[in-house]
């Protein structure tokens, strides 16, 4: 994968003074695919959370975080909207079905796809300096 050899130090410089990142920077650095739900422009990433249990995300994810998951059920749009997450990243090269994207457009939820696993995607975010929101 391109980008695997990037050193953590240089990647950390991507984080801005307030500890936040542009979602667009995350998309570009990790090579995420925009699945065509809401556009990722202008959003800030305040942290990240990984889970495939939607009830767990409802309980513990925080606003502004990106959510890494392999779930593709329509309910992920409701959970992402409810928690005001910056984006959903569907990992492992998976996609979501069109009704999910349509609902996401309606709710303003960004859905991205990562070719890598949740573990690897999370690791790359950590290397970029992304931590849990305070």
């Amino acid at each position, binding site marked *: 994968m391109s980008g695997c050899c990037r050193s953590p130090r240089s990647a950390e410089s991507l984080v801005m003074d307030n500890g936040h990142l542009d979602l667009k920077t995350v998309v570009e650095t990790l090579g995420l695919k925009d699945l065509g739900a809401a556009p990722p422009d202008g959003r800030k990433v305040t942290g990240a959370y990984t889970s*495939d*249990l*939607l*009830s*767990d*995300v*409802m309980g513990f994810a925080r606003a502004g975080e990106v959510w890494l998951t392999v*779930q*593709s*059920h*329509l*309910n992920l749009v*409701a*959970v992402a909207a409810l928690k005001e997450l910056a984006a959903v990243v569907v990992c492992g090269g998976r996609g979501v079905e069109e009704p999910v994207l349509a609902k996401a457009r309606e709710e303003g939820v960004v859905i991205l796809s990562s070719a890598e696993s949740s573990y690897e995607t999370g690791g790359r975010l950590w290397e970029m300096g992304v931590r849990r929101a305070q």
Partner: protein
Amino acid sequence: MLRRCRMDLHIHSALSPCAEVEMLPELIVMKAEMEGLDVIAVCDHNSAENAAACVEASRDSPVRVLPGIECETREGVHVLGIFDRPEQAAQLQEFVWSRLPDEPNRPEFFGQQLVVTADGDFVRYNPRLLVTSADAGLEEMCARIRDLGGLALPSHVDKTFAGLIGVLGLIPEGLDLEGVEISAALTPGEARARYPQLAGLGLVRSSDAHRLSEIGQVWTAAWLEKRTVEEIRLALCGRMGRRLEE
């Protein structure tokens, strides 16, 4: 004439991984009878291979056995598909198997998956991995069960492991359900207070028995005229006098 029926709609046979080997058709029926149950559903993991044998074992029993399957969907959610006739359950099995990964069972982890006759005689082991997800979404699975004339009843919805609310957080909008099974840890009142989204759904509790001693420990009473899937459906909706007792 309506009568009060004790139902336990979620019982596993020796075909299910982790069920004890004594979960044989005639013993299941005998224990259900001893416990005063009127209707039981035998629902093994992703398979209905012992369902017809359990129905046959109940021929001379006051217990009505409904054949079923506990399906696991792509999302990792468990759903009971409950039918009147074994052929319907077999059709659901065909669909589920067409969507299961081609993986072998590992008996050292999951136990042997025993296919047996009504008398409990050994027929064969099912060699495939049954404790895994079929590649079918929750909506598709429920629609398939319904199209085959069955009742789709998501299992233990409040459980983090494999329960609809635990896994998917919310009951999906537009999912066509008459009711759900809640885990034995909650009363229907507690479940409604904790999960307001359960409003309007019939709530049943079952034993989810994997051993004989568990059969009859938990059940739900329903007022039914006949012990059929359609009558249970009416009771879940509280229609035409059919209802659940909570």
